[in-house]
């Protein structure tokens, strides 16, 4: 009986781990989609209101959830206080500090940081095009993640169950 319960627990745990992996993949996709949503809002504010970056971040911050809100608010504050000699430093520091909990993949994190190096300096149209370019690249990444996701989720679940069974066989 004990063996049976132990086996059941092992299989449940590994299956659960497989499912968690699938959920994590889904969450990662949602994070990328949310970042795209935020950049769209920033772009819209920039095009429509043509106000300085600090004000744009402040306006968008109130419409998004944490940790994105903290990220935008901290940039607004740093811009108001002229913390750095160039905006890119503020952007990169804020991404590192406030969005670290998103655990973005290195490539995605680099792309997001790169966006900051082009903002502010150029005329309105070029800034807006730069944001659109980032959105396009992000959409490609989102597509890549989305394409592989269903098969990865299935593999994760299968591996979870199979791994559990394998462990049970070995242990018994």
């Amino acid at each position: 009986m004990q063996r049976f319960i132990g086996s059941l627990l092992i299989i449940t745990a590994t299956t659960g781990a497989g499912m968690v992996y699938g959920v994590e993949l889904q969450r990662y996709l949602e994070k990328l989609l949310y970042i795209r949503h935020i950049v769209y809002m920033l772009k819209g504010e920039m095009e429509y209101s043509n106000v300085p970056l600090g004000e744009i971040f402040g306006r968008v911050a109130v419409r998004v959830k944490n940790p994105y809100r903290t990220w935008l608010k901290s940039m607004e504050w740093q811009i108001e206080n002229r913390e750095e000699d160039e905006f890119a430093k503020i952007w990169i520091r804020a991404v590192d500090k406030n969005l670290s909990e998103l655990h973005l993949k290195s490539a995605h994190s680099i792309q997001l940081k790169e966006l900051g190096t082009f903002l502010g300096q150029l005329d309105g149209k070029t800034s807006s095009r730069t944001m659109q370019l980032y959105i396009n690249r992000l959409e490609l990444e989102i597509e890549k993640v989305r394409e592989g996701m269903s098969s990865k989720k299935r593999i994760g679940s299968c591996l979870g169950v199979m791994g559990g069974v394998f462990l049970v066989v070995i242990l018994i």
Partner: protein
Amino acid sequence: MSGENREHQVLQVLAKSIRTVVEAQRLDFKKLQEVRMRVGKPLGIIYDNEEWLLPSGQAQAHLVTKDEIRETMEYVSHYSLYAYEQEMRQGFITIEGGHRVGVMGKAILEGDKVKNLQYISSVNIRMAHEVLGCADKVLPFLTKNRQICHTLVISPPRCGKTTLIRDLIRQISDGNTYIKGCTVGVVDERSEIGGCYLGIAQNQLGMRTDILDGCPKAEGMIMLIRSMAPQVIAVDEIGAPEDIHAIEYAMQCGCKMIASVHGMSMDEAKDKPVLGKLIKERRFERYIILGNEKKPGEIREVYDERGSLLCRDL
């Protein structure tokens, strides 16, 4: 505006290395008039009507670098130069406190008009200066039954016409012994009257004043009449025919006008093509002629609508 406020407003837009040099001078910021930066040239200020090269008292002045100019522009524009394209086209950006940052560099043209500036090589921070009460002496001549008359200020450049108009607006808006406080609409095309920063006037314009910042005068006057129903409209440096037509329209709508124009005398104003017609039709009830022989802002003459002298050398 206190000296500490001015100090903070100016220092926060200076590149860090320049800030250190200026801070070390222990200046009284009330006396500071200008900070001038030119790439490769000594850092200079106009302080108490005198030019100083910083750091003062040292053989070698601080030479301004390209990076310092770039950093200063980052701070001036809140890292958002794109948002100041319209201002850059005019050659200056207004910062908190109404101080004006003049910028020079290479012009980017679109057709035959200046679109923006690049390779910024000179930055000049000019401190805002309000002279509260400078209209005290002239105001009694501009009112009838505690109501303001249509007034035209005629003055050559740098004689204080904007400063005078600003104080007139404040007094008309707040009201006093000579005038009942009334709503004033200001169309501030170049942010000179209000020194607006993010749409909020940094100069004192009174409690009943509505300001339309950065808007062309003719269009702005019509907008004000339709939206805010002002009793008095104030505009600076009129000249274009559409401005004069808008003034005529505003007068017909029952608004009192306060306006200024470049000129040396009544005769010169009369000779102006469209404005001259309004003067000959006696639309304006008072004319103030400014000069700067003794000091800027000197009120040389005040005339009534018939051209009769009401007073001289106030």
